[in-house]
């Protein structure tokens, strides 16, 4: 076994770092979309609107029941063949859309559990002062559910951040794609992918620190 080509790796770092903004943007857009959608899905699952409930169950079942990679291929390569206006969809958009739908399904279930975990007395107290169902949800129940759901949601965010690397399979040149191209010229595959791995790792570790801060913030009302 040969030693690592450290000089090559150091030279590659700024190249790969150049693609970090794209990765972060895809993850942030995916997370924002997934959060909004997941909250809507979770609230629907708790309130149970007739007919709609059936569709939501089907949605969650499909997007949890099939692999992310299969979903991405289905959207990007498959759907445009049957739905013509989708032919212009680019890889980044397709990846963000896929990540959004996929993670929304998972996150909806953990938000639903968190909503159901809020004490019944909180619902009754909100009703007793004459709040509407929407006010009760937005101001009392969801903020308390957020505290319970936060650790799992950050976990999904980490998963999604790493999942953006799959955009590579849709022809997007992101961190992984850039490393692949570089390595194809130098044949130093191990070095190139190691650089990518370390950069992902550092990003996730930073997120984990943010998670501690977030949890402290959400817990502030519950410290005795």
């Amino acid at each position, binding site marked *: 076994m040969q030693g690592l080509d450290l000089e090559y790796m150091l030279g590659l770092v700024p190249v790969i770092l150049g693609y970090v903004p794209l990765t972060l943007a895809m993850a942030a857009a995916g997370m924002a979309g997934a959060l909004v959608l997941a909250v809507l899905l979770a609230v629907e699952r708790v309130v149970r609107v007739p007919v709609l409930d059936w569709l939501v169950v089907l949605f969650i079942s499909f997007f949890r029941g099939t692999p992310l990679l299969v979903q991405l291929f289905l959207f990007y390569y498959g759907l445009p063949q049957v739905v013509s206006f989708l032919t212009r969809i680019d890889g980044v958009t397709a990846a963000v859309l896929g990540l959004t739908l996929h993670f929304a399904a998972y996150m909806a279930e953990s938000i639903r559990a968190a909503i159901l975990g809020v004490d019944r007395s909180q619902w009754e107290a909100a009703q007793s*002062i*004459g*709040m509407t169902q929407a006010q009760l949800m937005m*101001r009392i129940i969801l903020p308390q559910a957020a505290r319970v759901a936060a650790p799992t949601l950050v976990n999904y965010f980490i998963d999604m951040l790493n999942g953006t690397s799959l955009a590579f399979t849709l022809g997007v040149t992101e961190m992984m794609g850039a490393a692949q191209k570089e390595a194809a010229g130098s044949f130093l595959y191990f070095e190139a992918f190691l650089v990518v791995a370390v950069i992902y790792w550092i990003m996730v570790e930073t997120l984990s620190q943010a998670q501690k801060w977030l949890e402290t913030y959400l817990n502030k*009302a519950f410290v005795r």
Partner: protein
Amino acid sequence: MISIRGLTKRFGDKAVLDNIDLDIASGERVVIIGPSGTGKSTLLRCLNFLDRPDAGQISIGDLTVDAARARKGEILALRRRTGFVFQNYALFANKTAKENIMEALVTVQRLPREDAAKRALAILSETGLADKADSYPAALSGGQQQRVGIGRAMALDARLMLFDEPTSALDPEWVGEVLDLMRRVAEQKQTMLIVTHEMQFAREIADRVLFMEGGRIVEAGTPAEIFEAPRDARLQRFLSRVGR
């Protein structure tokens, strides 16, 4: 003026409230006593639609709600005219003492935030908790939480305040301060309907005492009539058990 006609609530085939008729004059303080599981709390909860009554009418001022076909808007209107104090306080856990009281003012009465905050602080002073304005419920004692709970109900400026065993979940050391606050609320001519096991307090604060059993009001009268000269045998038995 509050008027309740034929209020009925069934759980399965058991009538927990059996055709209740009750009138409460404005400013009147009515205390409900009786054994556990006889519908006292259910009566209060039905008046606020926390439990949905199966039949009957509830009138508060010019608002009349027919239980059998009450619509959302009517239920909200009814709730906004009735304050509810819970046995387990049920303060909003994600909000400070001040925010708990502000909540109805901001979301329901649509007051500007500054005005709501001012009013909330005034109410907190009345409850003797001005220095706890920014404390979260988790940091308050049971007695303090219940006083905030009463403050939250006071903020509604309700025609009727409902107290569902407000001291039953409290350690004995906190009961006194909560009853004191209820006395102060009573002094403001607030119409109150109180379910309690504090017989001494009932005797002292009530204009009228109702004895409930089996989902019915079995006997009603002044504290003197109920406590000194009970007629119904079930009331006599109940009073001897609780030692008046």
